[in-house]
Protein backbone atom coordinates (compact mmCIF):
# COMPACT_ATOMS: atom_id res chain seq x y z
CA UNK A 1 0.00 0.00 0.00
CA UNK A 2 1.25 3.45 -0.87
CA UNK A 3 2.05 5.72 2.04
CA UNK A 4 1.37 9.43 1.94
CA UNK A 5 3.61 12.10 3.31
CA UNK A 6 1.26 13.28 5.99
CA UNK A 7 1.52 16.78 7.35
CA UNK A 8 1.39 18.36 10.77
CA UNK A 9 -1.12 21.17 11.28
CA UNK A 10 -0.85 23.78 13.96
CA UNK A 11 -3.45 26.24 15.13
CA UNK A 12 -2.34 29.14 17.29
CA UNK A 13 -4.98 31.14 19.13
CA UNK A 14 -7.53 30.86 16.33
CA UNK A 15 -10.59 33.05 16.78
CA UNK A 16 -13.55 33.56 14.48
CA UNK A 17 -16.33 36.10 14.80
CA UNK A 18 -19.46 36.46 12.73
CA UNK A 19 -20.36 40.07 13.38
CA UNK A 20 -20.39 40.40 17.16
CA UNK A 21 -20.88 36.65 17.69
CA UNK A 22 -17.72 34.75 18.62
CA UNK A 23 -17.99 31.34 16.99
CA UNK A 24 -14.45 30.35 18.01
CA UNK A 25 -12.26 31.73 20.79
CA UNK A 26 -8.56 31.13 21.22
CA UNK A 27 -8.23 27.63 19.76
CA UNK A 28 -4.67 26.33 19.98
CA UNK A 29 -3.75 22.79 19.10
CA UNK A 30 -1.27 20.77 17.08
CA UNK A 31 -2.32 17.80 15.02
CA UNK A 32 0.65 15.54 14.39
CA UNK A 33 1.61 13.75 11.20
CA UNK A 34 -0.64 10.81 10.53
CA UNK A 35 -2.74 11.50 13.57
CA UNK A 36 -6.50 10.90 13.65
CA UNK A 37 -8.04 13.74 15.62
CA UNK A 38 -11.77 13.98 16.19
CA UNK A 39 -13.49 17.28 16.87
CA UNK A 40 -16.35 16.53 19.21
CA UNK A 41 -18.89 18.87 20.70
CA UNK A 42 -22.54 19.81 20.88
CA UNK A 43 -24.35 21.44 17.99
CA UNK A 44 -23.18 24.98 17.36
CA UNK A 45 -19.91 24.55 19.27
CA UNK A 46 -17.83 25.63 16.27
CA UNK A 47 -16.59 22.31 14.89
CA UNK A 48 -17.57 23.00 11.29
CA UNK A 49 -16.30 26.56 11.53
CA UNK A 50 -12.90 25.30 12.72
CA UNK A 51 -12.76 22.72 9.94
CA UNK A 52 -13.65 25.38 7.35
CA UNK A 53 -10.81 27.53 8.67
CA UNK A 54 -8.40 24.58 8.43
CA UNK A 55 -9.55 23.92 4.85
CA UNK A 56 -9.26 27.59 3.94
CA UNK A 57 -12.93 28.14 3.08
CA UNK A 58 -13.27 30.61 5.94
CA UNK A 59 -10.66 33.06 7.16
CA UNK A 60 -9.90 33.17 10.87
CA UNK A 61 -10.53 36.53 12.50
CA UNK A 62 -7.48 36.14 14.71
CA UNK A 63 -4.69 33.63 15.12
CA UNK A 64 -2.37 31.67 12.88
CA UNK A 65 -2.32 28.33 11.09
CA UNK A 66 0.78 26.34 10.20
CA UNK A 67 1.45 23.32 8.02
CA UNK A 68 4.66 21.48 8.93
CA UNK A 69 5.77 24.68 10.61
CA UNK A 70 5.15 26.94 7.60
CA UNK A 71 2.60 29.71 7.87
CA UNK A 72 -0.67 28.75 6.21
CA UNK A 73 -2.97 31.49 7.47
CA UNK A 74 -3.39 33.32 4.17
CA UNK A 75 -3.00 30.41 1.77
CA UNK A 76 -6.19 30.02 -0.30
CA UNK A 77 -8.13 26.76 -0.14
CA UNK A 78 -7.15 25.68 -3.65
CA UNK A 79 -3.48 26.01 -2.77
CA UNK A 80 -3.87 24.05 0.49
CA UNK A 81 -5.70 21.29 -1.40
CA UNK A 82 -6.59 19.34 1.73
CA UNK A 83 -8.95 16.49 1.09
CA UNK A 84 -12.40 17.32 2.37
CA UNK A 85 -15.47 15.19 2.85
CA UNK A 86 -18.49 17.39 3.41
CA UNK A 87 -21.57 16.51 5.33
CA UNK A 88 -24.04 15.53 2.60
CA UNK A 89 -21.20 14.34 0.34
CA UNK A 90 -21.13 17.26 -2.16
CA UNK A 91 -20.48 14.97 -5.11
CA UNK A 92 -20.54 16.39 -8.62
CA UNK A 93 -23.97 15.29 -9.89
CA UNK A 94 -23.12 15.56 -13.57
CA UNK A 95 -20.14 13.24 -13.33
CA UNK A 96 -19.96 9.46 -12.95
CA UNK A 97 -18.32 7.85 -9.94
CA UNK A 98 -15.12 7.48 -11.95
CA UNK A 99 -15.17 11.08 -13.15
CA UNK A 100 -15.84 12.33 -9.63
CA UNK A 101 -12.82 10.47 -8.29
CA UNK A 102 -10.69 11.50 -11.27
CA UNK A 103 -11.45 15.22 -10.88
CA UNK A 104 -8.72 16.14 -8.35
CA UNK A 105 -6.17 14.20 -10.41
CA UNK A 106 -7.21 16.10 -13.54
CA UNK A 107 -6.77 19.34 -11.63
CA UNK A 108 -3.22 18.25 -10.83
CA UNK A 109 -2.63 17.56 -14.51
CA UNK A 110 -1.75 13.89 -14.15
CA UNK A 111 -1.47 11.76 -17.27
CA UNK A 112 -4.50 9.82 -18.46
CA UNK A 113 -2.90 6.45 -17.78
CA UNK A 114 -1.91 7.53 -14.27
CA UNK A 115 -5.44 8.82 -13.61
CA UNK A 116 -6.99 5.61 -14.89
CA UNK A 117 -4.77 3.47 -12.69
CA UNK A 118 -5.28 5.53 -9.54
CA UNK A 119 -9.03 5.81 -9.99
CA UNK A 120 -9.20 2.05 -10.54
CA UNK A 121 -7.24 1.46 -7.32
CA UNK A 122 -9.45 3.81 -5.35
CA UNK A 123 -12.70 2.33 -6.70
CA UNK A 124 -11.50 -1.10 -5.57
CA UNK A 125 -10.31 0.19 -2.23
CA UNK A 126 -13.68 1.63 -1.25
CA UNK A 127 -15.51 -1.36 -2.72
CA UNK A 128 -17.32 0.37 -5.57
CA UNK A 129 -16.24 -1.94 -8.39
CA UNK A 130 -19.17 -2.31 -10.77
CA UNK A 131 -20.60 1.09 -9.91
CA UNK A 132 -17.94 3.24 -11.52
CA UNK A 133 -20.08 4.35 -14.46
CA UNK A 134 -23.07 5.38 -12.38
CA UNK A 135 -24.02 8.93 -11.55
CA UNK A 136 -24.27 9.86 -7.83
CA UNK A 137 -28.07 9.99 -8.10
CA UNK A 138 -28.01 6.27 -8.86
CA UNK A 139 -26.10 5.35 -5.70
CA UNK A 140 -27.21 4.60 -2.14
CA UNK A 141 -26.21 6.93 0.69
CA UNK A 142 -23.38 4.68 1.80
CA UNK A 143 -22.07 4.31 -1.72
CA UNK A 144 -22.12 8.08 -2.23
CA UNK A 145 -20.24 8.37 1.03
CA UNK A 146 -17.55 6.06 -0.29
CA UNK A 147 -17.25 8.06 -3.48
CA UNK A 148 -16.76 11.20 -1.39
CA UNK A 149 -14.05 9.43 0.62
CA UNK A 150 -12.33 8.06 -2.47
CA UNK A 151 -12.44 11.47 -4.15
CA UNK A 152 -10.88 13.11 -1.11
CA UNK A 153 -8.16 10.46 -0.75
CA UNK A 154 -7.21 9.77 -4.36
CA UNK A 155 -4.78 12.65 -4.78
CA UNK A 156 -2.83 11.92 -1.60
CA UNK A 157 -3.73 15.13 0.25
CA UNK A 158 -1.43 15.79 3.21
CA UNK A 159 -4.50 16.28 5.42
CA UNK A 160 -7.99 14.85 5.18
CA UNK A 161 -10.88 16.77 6.73
CA UNK A 162 -14.19 14.99 7.31
CA UNK A 163 -17.28 16.85 8.50
CA UNK A 164 -19.83 14.51 10.07
CA UNK A 165 -19.45 12.17 7.12
CA UNK A 166 -21.67 9.45 8.55
CA UNK A 167 -24.50 11.46 10.03
CA UNK A 168 -26.94 10.42 7.31
CA UNK A 169 -26.23 6.70 7.54
CA UNK A 170 -28.07 4.00 9.49
CA UNK A 171 -26.37 2.31 12.38
CA UNK A 172 -25.08 -0.73 10.49
CA UNK A 173 -23.70 1.22 7.59
CA UNK A 174 -22.23 3.68 10.00
CA UNK A 175 -20.29 0.98 11.80
CA UNK A 176 -19.12 -0.40 8.47
CA UNK A 177 -17.94 3.01 7.29
CA UNK A 178 -16.19 3.66 10.59
CA UNK A 179 -14.21 0.46 10.16
CA UNK A 180 -13.43 1.48 6.62
CA UNK A 181 -12.19 4.94 7.62
CA UNK A 182 -10.08 3.42 10.35
CA UNK A 183 -8.56 0.98 7.88
CA UNK A 184 -7.91 3.71 5.31
CA UNK A 185 -6.21 5.81 7.94
CA UNK A 186 -4.03 2.91 8.99
CA UNK A 187 -3.11 2.04 5.42
CA UNK A 188 -2.56 5.53 4.04
CA UNK A 189 -1.11 7.25 7.06
CA UNK A 190 -2.68 10.63 6.14
CA UNK A 191 -3.46 13.13 8.89
CA UNK A 192 -7.20 12.90 9.56
CA UNK A 193 -9.38 15.54 11.18
CA UNK A 194 -12.86 14.17 11.73
CA UNK A 195 -15.88 16.09 12.99
CA UNK A 196 -18.71 14.35 14.78
CA UNK A 197 -21.13 14.94 17.59
CA UNK A 198 -21.39 11.25 18.29
CA UNK A 199 -19.19 10.57 21.32
CA UNK A 200 -18.86 6.82 20.80
CA UNK A 201 -17.77 7.43 17.21
CA UNK A 202 -15.14 9.86 18.46
CA UNK A 203 -13.84 7.46 21.11
CA UNK A 204 -13.80 4.52 18.70
CA UNK A 205 -11.95 6.17 15.83
CA UNK A 206 -9.44 8.66 17.02
CA UNK A 207 -5.94 8.83 18.36
CA UNK A 208 -6.98 12.05 20.13
CA UNK A 209 -10.31 13.72 20.77
CA UNK A 210 -10.69 17.51 20.83
CA UNK A 211 -13.75 18.58 22.75
CA UNK A 212 -15.39 21.88 21.82
CA UNK A 213 -17.99 23.84 23.72
CA UNK A 214 -19.33 27.26 22.79
CA UNK A 215 -16.39 27.95 20.52
CA UNK A 216 -13.68 27.02 23.00
CA UNK A 217 -11.44 23.98 23.17
CA UNK A 218 -12.16 22.18 26.44
CA UNK A 219 -9.66 19.34 26.19
CA UNK A 220 -7.62 17.48 23.62
CA UNK A 221 -6.36 14.05 24.68
CA UNK A 222 -6.48 10.36 23.74
CA UNK A 223 -9.95 8.77 24.03
CA UNK A 224 -9.14 6.88 27.24
CA UNK A 225 -7.86 10.02 28.86
CA UNK A 226 -10.76 12.30 27.95
CA UNK A 227 -13.11 9.63 29.20
CA UNK A 228 -11.31 8.68 32.37
CA UNK A 229 -9.51 11.94 33.14
CA UNK A 230 -11.85 14.66 31.84
CA UNK A 231 -10.39 18.13 32.27
CA UNK A 232 -13.61 19.60 33.55
CA UNK A 233 -17.23 18.96 34.30
CA UNK A 234 -18.39 19.77 30.76
CA UNK A 235 -16.11 17.14 29.25
CA UNK A 236 -17.02 14.62 31.94
CA UNK A 237 -20.72 15.05 31.39
CA UNK A 238 -20.52 15.27 27.61
CA UNK A 239 -18.83 11.88 27.34
CA UNK A 240 -21.58 9.74 28.80
CA UNK A 241 -23.20 9.45 32.22
CA UNK A 242 -21.22 10.36 35.31
CA UNK A 243 -22.01 10.63 39.01
CA UNK A 244 -21.18 14.00 40.51
CA UNK A 245 -20.61 14.15 44.26
CA UNK A 246 -20.20 17.44 46.13
CA UNK A 247 -17.65 16.45 48.74
CA UNK A 248 -16.39 18.26 51.83
CA UNK A 249 -13.40 18.22 54.20
CA UNK A 250 -10.96 17.55 51.37
CA UNK A 251 -7.42 16.98 52.57
CA UNK A 252 -4.31 15.76 50.78
CA UNK A 253 -2.67 12.58 52.07
CA UNK A 254 0.63 10.91 51.07
CA UNK A 255 -1.09 8.50 48.68
CA UNK A 256 -3.87 10.75 47.43
CA UNK A 257 -6.61 12.60 49.20
CA UNK A 258 -9.32 12.17 51.75
CA UNK A 259 -12.80 13.68 51.83
CA UNK A 260 -16.24 13.08 53.18
CA UNK A 261 -19.67 12.79 51.62
CA UNK A 262 -22.84 12.58 53.67
CA UNK A 263 -20.84 11.51 56.69
CA UNK A 264 -18.99 8.74 54.83
CA UNK A 265 -15.26 9.11 54.62
CA UNK A 266 -13.90 8.67 51.06
CA UNK A 267 -10.42 7.94 49.77
CA UNK A 268 -9.12 9.20 46.44
CA UNK A 269 -5.98 7.54 45.09
CA UNK A 270 -3.71 8.37 42.19
CA UNK A 271 -4.49 12.09 42.29
CA UNK A 272 -6.68 12.48 39.23
CA UNK A 273 -6.63 16.23 38.79
CA UNK A 274 -6.21 18.86 41.46
CA UNK A 275 -8.20 18.27 44.64
CA UNK A 276 -11.51 20.11 44.59
CA UNK A 277 -15.00 19.93 46.06
CA UNK A 278 -16.39 17.86 43.20
CA UNK A 279 -15.73 14.16 42.83
CA UNK A 280 -16.96 12.31 39.75
CA UNK A 281 -17.31 8.57 39.23
CA UNK A 282 -18.37 6.80 36.01
CA UNK A 283 -21.42 4.49 36.44
CA UNK A 284 -19.52 1.39 35.27
CA UNK A 285 -16.94 1.77 38.07
CA UNK A 286 -19.58 1.77 40.78
CA UNK A 287 -20.76 -1.56 42.01
CA UNK A 288 -23.81 -2.47 44.05
CA UNK A 289 -23.43 -4.08 47.49
CA UNK A 290 -26.11 -5.17 49.94
CA UNK A 291 -23.84 -4.57 52.93
CA UNK A 292 -21.06 -2.09 53.42
CA UNK A 293 -17.92 -3.46 51.69
CA UNK A 294 -14.77 -3.80 53.82
CA UNK A 295 -12.49 -1.94 51.40
CA UNK A 296 -12.91 0.98 49.03
CA UNK A 297 -15.42 3.78 49.09
CA UNK A 298 -19.14 3.30 49.62
CA UNK A 299 -22.24 5.44 49.99
CA UNK A 300 -25.49 4.34 51.56
CA UNK A 301 -28.39 4.67 49.15
CA UNK A 302 -31.86 3.48 48.21
CA UNK A 303 -32.63 1.61 44.99
CA UNK A 304 -35.05 3.69 42.93
CA UNK A 305 -35.17 2.03 39.54
CA UNK A 306 -33.67 -0.82 37.60
CA UNK A 307 -33.39 -0.95 33.80
CA UNK A 308 -32.43 -4.19 32.12
CA UNK A 309 -30.21 -3.54 29.06
CA UNK A 310 -29.10 -7.07 28.24
CA UNK A 311 -25.45 -7.51 29.15
CA UNK A 312 -25.69 -4.53 31.51
CA UNK A 313 -28.30 -3.41 33.97
CA UNK A 314 -28.66 0.24 34.80
CA UNK A 315 -29.55 1.08 38.38
CA UNK A 316 -30.87 4.39 39.65
CA UNK A 317 -30.11 5.11 43.28
CA UNK A 318 -30.67 7.98 45.65
CA UNK A 319 -28.19 8.67 48.42
CA UNK A 320 -29.33 9.43 51.95
CA UNK A 321 -29.14 13.14 51.04
CA UNK A 322 -31.25 12.47 47.89
CA UNK A 323 -28.31 12.85 45.48
CA UNK A 324 -29.15 10.76 42.38
CA UNK A 325 -26.63 8.07 41.46
CA UNK A 326 -26.41 5.95 38.33
CA UNK A 327 -24.74 2.54 38.27
CA UNK A 328 -24.06 0.36 35.29
CA UNK A 329 -23.57 -3.19 36.51
CA UNK A 330 -22.95 -6.38 34.50
CA UNK A 331 -26.22 -8.26 34.70
CA UNK A 332 -24.35 -11.41 35.65
CA UNK A 333 -22.84 -9.68 38.70
CA UNK A 334 -26.15 -8.38 40.01
CA UNK A 335 -27.18 -9.64 43.49
CA UNK A 336 -30.37 -11.70 43.37
CA UNK A 337 -33.56 -10.65 45.10
CA UNK A 338 -33.21 -6.91 44.57
CA UNK A 339 -36.38 -4.92 45.12
CA UNK A 340 -37.14 -1.28 44.46
CA UNK A 341 -36.77 0.66 47.68
CA UNK A 342 -34.13 -1.67 49.10
CA UNK A 343 -31.29 -0.15 51.13
CA UNK A 344 -28.01 -0.77 49.30
CA UNK A 345 -24.44 0.54 49.03
CA UNK A 346 -22.84 2.12 45.96
CA UNK A 347 -19.14 1.24 46.09
CA UNK A 348 -16.10 2.14 43.98
CA UNK A 349 -12.33 1.71 44.19
CA UNK A 350 -10.39 4.79 45.45
CA UNK A 351 -8.51 5.14 42.13
CA UNK A 352 -11.75 5.52 40.15
CA UNK A 353 -12.85 8.85 41.54
CA UNK A 354 -11.97 11.97 39.56
CA UNK A 355 -11.65 15.51 40.89
CA UNK A 356 -13.44 18.03 38.68
Amino acid at each position, binding site marked *: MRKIKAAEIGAEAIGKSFGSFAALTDISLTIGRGEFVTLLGPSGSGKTTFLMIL*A*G*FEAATTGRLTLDGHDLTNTP*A*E*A*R*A*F*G*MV*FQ*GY*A*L*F*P*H*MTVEQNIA*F*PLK*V*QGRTDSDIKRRVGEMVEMVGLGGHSHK*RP*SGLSGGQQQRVALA*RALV*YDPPVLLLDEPFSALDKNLRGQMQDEVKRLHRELGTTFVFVTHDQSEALALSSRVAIFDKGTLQQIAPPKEVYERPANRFVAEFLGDINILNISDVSVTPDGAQASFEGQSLRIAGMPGTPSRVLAVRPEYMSLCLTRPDTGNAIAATLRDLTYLGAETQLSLASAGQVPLVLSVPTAALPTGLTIGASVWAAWPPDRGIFL
Partner: protein
Amino acid sequence: MPTLPRSALLIAPLIGFTVLTYLVPFLGILRWSVTLPEPGLGQYQTALSDPLVLSVFLRTLRICAVVTLTAVSAAYMITLLWVRGSPAQRLAVELCILIPFWISVLTRAFGWLALLSNKGILNTWMQSLGILSEPLTMVRNEFGVVVGMVHFLIPFAAFPLASAMRAVDERALLAARGMGAGRARVFGQIFVPMTASGILGAALVVFVFALGFFVTPAILGGGRSVMAAELIYLRIFQSPDWGLGAAVSVILMLAVGAMLALLMRRVRPGRPQ
Protein backbone atom coordinates in the same frame (compact mmCIF):
# COMPACT_ATOMS: atom_id res chain seq x y z
CA MET B 1 -55.63 14.89 -5.80
CA PRO B 2 -58.97 15.83 -7.29
CA THR B 3 -60.56 13.27 -9.58
CA LEU B 4 -60.24 13.87 -13.28
CA PRO B 5 -63.86 14.87 -14.11
CA ARG B 6 -63.94 17.35 -11.27
CA SER B 7 -60.67 19.05 -12.17
CA ALA B 8 -61.74 19.02 -15.82
CA LEU B 9 -64.90 20.84 -14.80
CA LEU B 10 -62.90 23.47 -12.94
CA ILE B 11 -60.69 24.29 -15.89
CA ALA B 12 -63.51 23.88 -18.42
CA PRO B 13 -63.93 27.65 -18.99
CA LEU B 14 -60.25 27.92 -19.80
CA ILE B 15 -60.42 24.97 -22.17
CA GLY B 16 -63.52 26.43 -23.80
CA PHE B 17 -61.82 29.78 -24.22
CA THR B 18 -58.72 28.22 -25.71
CA VAL B 19 -60.74 26.11 -28.13
CA LEU B 20 -62.76 29.10 -29.23
CA THR B 21 -59.90 31.55 -29.65
CA TYR B 22 -57.05 29.31 -30.76
CA LEU B 23 -58.16 25.92 -31.93
CA VAL B 24 -61.12 26.99 -34.08
CA PRO B 25 -59.17 29.69 -35.91
CA PHE B 26 -56.26 27.33 -36.28
CA LEU B 27 -58.48 24.69 -37.84
CA GLY B 28 -59.67 27.42 -40.21
CA ILE B 29 -56.05 28.16 -41.13
CA LEU B 30 -55.42 24.48 -41.60
CA ARG B 31 -58.40 24.34 -43.99
CA TRP B 32 -57.24 27.34 -45.95
CA SER B 33 -53.81 25.85 -46.34
CA VAL B 34 -55.22 22.82 -48.19
CA THR B 35 -58.16 24.47 -50.02
CA LEU B 36 -56.97 27.88 -51.25
CA PRO B 37 -56.81 28.65 -54.07
CA GLU B 38 -57.61 25.03 -54.93
CA PRO B 39 -57.80 21.81 -52.88
CA GLY B 40 -54.53 19.93 -52.43
CA LEU B 41 -51.08 20.22 -50.86
CA GLY B 42 -49.89 22.62 -53.55
CA GLN B 43 -49.29 25.48 -51.08
CA TYR B 44 -47.04 23.31 -48.92
CA GLN B 45 -45.10 22.39 -52.02
CA THR B 46 -44.75 26.07 -52.85
CA ALA B 47 -43.82 26.98 -49.28
CA LEU B 48 -41.04 24.38 -49.25
CA SER B 49 -39.72 25.11 -52.73
CA ASP B 50 -40.30 28.82 -53.41
CA PRO B 51 -36.84 30.40 -52.98
CA LEU B 52 -38.36 33.49 -51.39
CA VAL B 53 -40.28 31.57 -48.75
CA LEU B 54 -37.32 29.28 -48.17
CA SER B 55 -35.02 32.22 -47.69
CA VAL B 56 -37.41 33.59 -45.06
CA PHE B 57 -37.40 30.23 -43.28
CA LEU B 58 -33.62 30.11 -43.41
CA ARG B 59 -33.33 33.66 -42.13
CA THR B 60 -35.80 32.89 -39.36
CA LEU B 61 -33.75 29.88 -38.30
CA ARG B 62 -30.51 31.80 -38.51
CA ILE B 63 -31.80 34.77 -36.54
CA CYS B 64 -33.39 32.49 -33.96
CA ALA B 65 -30.13 30.56 -33.55
CA VAL B 66 -28.07 33.74 -33.16
CA VAL B 67 -30.65 35.27 -30.82
CA THR B 68 -30.80 32.11 -28.70
CA LEU B 69 -27.05 31.89 -28.41
CA THR B 70 -26.64 35.58 -27.58
CA ALA B 71 -29.63 35.90 -25.28
CA VAL B 72 -28.81 32.77 -23.29
CA SER B 73 -25.11 33.67 -22.92
CA ALA B 74 -25.95 37.22 -21.88
CA ALA B 75 -28.68 36.00 -19.56
CA TYR B 76 -26.21 33.53 -18.01
CA MET B 77 -23.83 36.30 -17.00
CA ILE B 78 -26.65 38.50 -15.77
CA THR B 79 -28.30 35.71 -13.82
CA LEU B 80 -24.97 34.78 -12.28
CA LEU B 81 -24.82 38.29 -10.82
CA TRP B 82 -28.46 38.07 -9.83
CA VAL B 83 -28.08 34.80 -7.96
CA ARG B 84 -24.54 35.03 -6.63
CA GLY B 85 -23.70 38.73 -6.64
CA SER B 86 -23.56 41.18 -3.74
CA PRO B 87 -26.89 42.61 -2.53
CA ALA B 88 -26.30 45.79 -4.55
CA GLN B 89 -25.57 43.79 -7.70
CA ARG B 90 -28.69 41.72 -7.14
CA LEU B 91 -30.85 44.80 -6.87
CA ALA B 92 -29.32 46.33 -9.98
CA VAL B 93 -29.90 43.15 -11.98
CA GLU B 94 -33.45 42.83 -10.74
CA LEU B 95 -34.21 46.34 -11.92
CA CYS B 96 -32.50 45.78 -15.26
CA ILE B 97 -34.46 42.59 -15.84
CA LEU B 98 -37.82 43.55 -14.44
CA ILE B 99 -38.30 47.11 -15.67
CA PRO B 100 -37.96 46.25 -19.38
CA PHE B 101 -40.14 43.22 -18.69
CA TRP B 102 -43.06 45.54 -17.92
CA ILE B 103 -42.61 47.72 -21.01
CA SER B 104 -44.52 46.69 -24.14
CA VAL B 105 -42.62 45.04 -26.95
CA LEU B 106 -43.71 47.82 -29.32
CA THR B 107 -42.35 50.57 -27.11
CA ARG B 108 -39.08 48.73 -26.73
CA ALA B 109 -38.72 48.22 -30.48
CA PHE B 110 -39.23 51.93 -31.10
CA GLY B 111 -36.80 52.66 -28.30
CA TRP B 112 -34.12 50.64 -30.06
CA LEU B 113 -35.00 52.37 -33.31
CA ALA B 114 -34.45 55.74 -31.67
CA LEU B 115 -31.16 54.53 -30.29
CA LEU B 116 -29.73 52.68 -33.29
CA SER B 117 -31.09 54.28 -36.47
CA ASN B 118 -28.88 56.29 -38.81
CA LYS B 119 -30.04 59.55 -37.28
CA GLY B 120 -30.46 57.90 -33.89
CA ILE B 121 -28.84 58.75 -30.59
CA LEU B 122 -25.89 56.40 -30.88
CA ASN B 123 -24.89 57.39 -34.43
CA THR B 124 -25.28 61.13 -33.78
CA TRP B 125 -23.25 60.87 -30.65
CA MET B 126 -20.44 58.84 -32.18
CA GLN B 127 -20.32 61.16 -35.17
CA SER B 128 -20.16 64.27 -33.02
CA LEU B 129 -17.32 62.68 -31.06
CA GLY B 130 -15.58 61.95 -34.34
CA ILE B 131 -15.50 58.19 -33.81
CA LEU B 132 -17.53 57.70 -36.97
CA SER B 133 -17.63 59.76 -40.17
CA GLU B 134 -20.50 57.86 -41.77
CA PRO B 135 -23.48 56.61 -39.78
CA LEU B 136 -23.26 52.92 -38.97
CA THR B 137 -26.27 50.96 -40.22
CA MET B 138 -27.59 49.19 -37.18
CA VAL B 139 -31.29 48.90 -38.00
CA ARG B 140 -33.27 47.78 -41.02
CA ASN B 141 -31.01 44.74 -41.05
CA GLU B 142 -30.53 41.52 -39.12
CA PHE B 143 -28.30 43.19 -36.57
CA GLY B 144 -31.11 45.46 -35.44
CA VAL B 145 -33.54 42.56 -35.32
CA VAL B 146 -31.14 40.48 -33.24
CA VAL B 147 -30.48 43.31 -30.80
CA GLY B 148 -34.17 43.96 -30.26
CA MET B 149 -35.05 40.30 -29.87
CA VAL B 150 -32.15 39.52 -27.55
CA HIS B 151 -33.13 42.39 -25.33
CA PHE B 152 -36.71 41.23 -25.23
CA LEU B 153 -35.86 37.60 -24.55
CA ILE B 154 -33.15 37.90 -21.88
CA PRO B 155 -35.65 37.88 -18.98
CA PHE B 156 -37.27 34.73 -20.34
CA ALA B 157 -33.89 33.03 -20.29
CA ALA B 158 -33.00 34.47 -16.89
CA PHE B 159 -35.80 32.76 -14.98
CA PRO B 160 -35.01 29.12 -15.84
CA LEU B 161 -31.31 29.88 -15.43
CA ALA B 162 -31.87 31.39 -12.00
CA SER B 163 -33.78 28.40 -10.74
CA ALA B 164 -31.04 26.06 -11.99
CA MET B 165 -28.31 28.18 -10.40
CA ARG B 166 -30.14 28.38 -7.08
CA ALA B 167 -30.31 24.59 -7.01
CA VAL B 168 -26.51 24.22 -7.25
CA ASP B 169 -25.06 22.76 -4.05
CA GLU B 170 -22.57 25.31 -2.75
CA ARG B 171 -20.53 22.56 -1.13
CA ALA B 172 -19.82 20.91 -4.48
CA LEU B 173 -18.15 24.16 -5.54
CA LEU B 174 -16.19 24.34 -2.28
CA ALA B 175 -15.22 20.69 -2.70
CA ALA B 176 -13.80 21.41 -6.15
CA ARG B 177 -11.86 24.40 -4.84
CA GLY B 178 -10.60 22.30 -1.96
CA MET B 179 -9.15 19.83 -4.47
CA GLY B 180 -7.06 22.61 -5.93
CA ALA B 181 -9.32 23.72 -8.78
CA GLY B 182 -9.05 27.43 -9.65
CA ARG B 183 -12.00 29.72 -10.25
CA ALA B 184 -12.12 29.20 -14.02
CA ARG B 185 -12.11 25.42 -13.67
CA VAL B 186 -14.74 25.42 -10.92
CA PHE B 187 -16.93 27.60 -13.13
CA GLY B 188 -16.39 25.74 -16.40
CA GLN B 189 -16.25 22.16 -15.19
CA ILE B 190 -18.52 22.21 -12.16
CA PHE B 191 -20.88 25.18 -12.10
CA VAL B 192 -21.85 25.37 -15.78
CA PRO B 193 -22.47 21.61 -16.16
CA MET B 194 -24.49 21.64 -12.94
CA THR B 195 -26.76 24.28 -14.50
CA ALA B 196 -27.00 22.47 -17.85
CA SER B 197 -30.69 21.72 -17.46
CA GLY B 198 -31.38 25.43 -16.94
CA ILE B 199 -29.32 26.34 -20.00
CA LEU B 200 -31.25 23.87 -22.12
CA GLY B 201 -34.60 25.07 -20.79
CA ALA B 202 -33.66 28.70 -21.37
CA ALA B 203 -32.46 27.95 -24.90
CA LEU B 204 -35.68 26.16 -25.80
CA VAL B 205 -37.90 28.89 -24.36
CA VAL B 206 -35.97 31.60 -26.18
CA PHE B 207 -35.89 29.69 -29.46
CA VAL B 208 -39.61 28.93 -29.41
CA PHE B 209 -40.48 32.54 -28.62
CA ALA B 210 -38.08 33.82 -31.24
CA LEU B 211 -39.62 31.68 -33.97
CA GLY B 212 -42.91 33.53 -33.79
CA PHE B 213 -41.54 37.07 -33.37
CA PHE B 214 -43.41 39.66 -35.37
CA VAL B 215 -43.29 43.19 -33.99
CA THR B 216 -39.56 43.45 -33.36
CA PRO B 217 -38.42 42.17 -36.79
CA ALA B 218 -41.12 44.26 -38.50
CA ILE B 219 -39.94 47.47 -36.87
CA LEU B 220 -36.19 46.92 -36.52
CA GLY B 221 -35.89 44.88 -39.73
CA GLY B 222 -37.71 47.56 -41.67
CA GLY B 223 -39.15 45.14 -44.20
CA ARG B 224 -35.72 43.88 -45.23
CA SER B 225 -35.15 41.16 -42.69
CA VAL B 226 -38.53 39.51 -43.01
CA MET B 227 -39.06 36.61 -40.63
CA ALA B 228 -41.67 33.86 -40.85
CA ALA B 229 -44.35 35.62 -38.82
CA GLU B 230 -44.06 38.78 -40.88
CA LEU B 231 -44.20 36.73 -44.07
CA ILE B 232 -47.51 35.24 -42.95
CA TYR B 233 -48.81 38.72 -42.25
CA LEU B 234 -47.73 39.95 -45.68
CA ARG B 235 -49.28 36.94 -47.45
CA ILE B 236 -52.59 37.33 -45.70
CA PHE B 237 -53.03 41.08 -45.43
CA GLN B 238 -51.10 42.51 -48.34
CA SER B 239 -50.83 40.09 -51.23
CA PRO B 240 -54.05 38.11 -51.04
CA ASP B 241 -52.33 34.75 -51.00
CA TRP B 242 -54.13 33.22 -48.05
CA GLY B 243 -53.37 29.65 -48.93
CA LEU B 244 -49.60 30.18 -48.84
CA GLY B 245 -49.83 32.29 -45.67
CA ALA B 246 -51.82 29.53 -44.04
CA ALA B 247 -49.37 26.83 -45.12
CA VAL B 248 -46.44 28.82 -43.71
CA SER B 249 -48.41 29.26 -40.46
CA VAL B 250 -48.99 25.54 -40.17
CA ILE B 251 -45.32 24.79 -40.80
CA LEU B 252 -44.27 27.32 -38.15
CA MET B 253 -46.84 25.92 -35.77
CA LEU B 254 -45.50 22.40 -36.28
CA ALA B 255 -41.95 23.60 -35.66
CA VAL B 256 -42.98 25.35 -32.44
CA GLY B 257 -45.02 22.31 -31.41
CA ALA B 258 -42.03 20.03 -31.93
CA MET B 259 -39.80 22.31 -29.88
CA LEU B 260 -42.37 22.51 -27.09
CA ALA B 261 -42.70 18.74 -27.04
CA LEU B 262 -38.94 18.56 -26.60
CA LEU B 263 -39.11 21.12 -23.81
CA MET B 264 -41.84 19.19 -22.01
CA ARG B 265 -39.85 15.98 -22.28
CA ARG B 266 -36.86 17.71 -20.70
CA VAL B 267 -38.81 19.31 -17.91
CA ARG B 268 -41.26 16.61 -16.90
CA PRO B 269 -38.99 13.87 -15.47
CA GLY B 270 -37.74 16.41 -12.94
CA ARG B 271 -34.47 18.20 -13.29
CA PRO B 272 -31.46 16.11 -12.33
CA GLN B 273 -30.86 18.38 -9.32
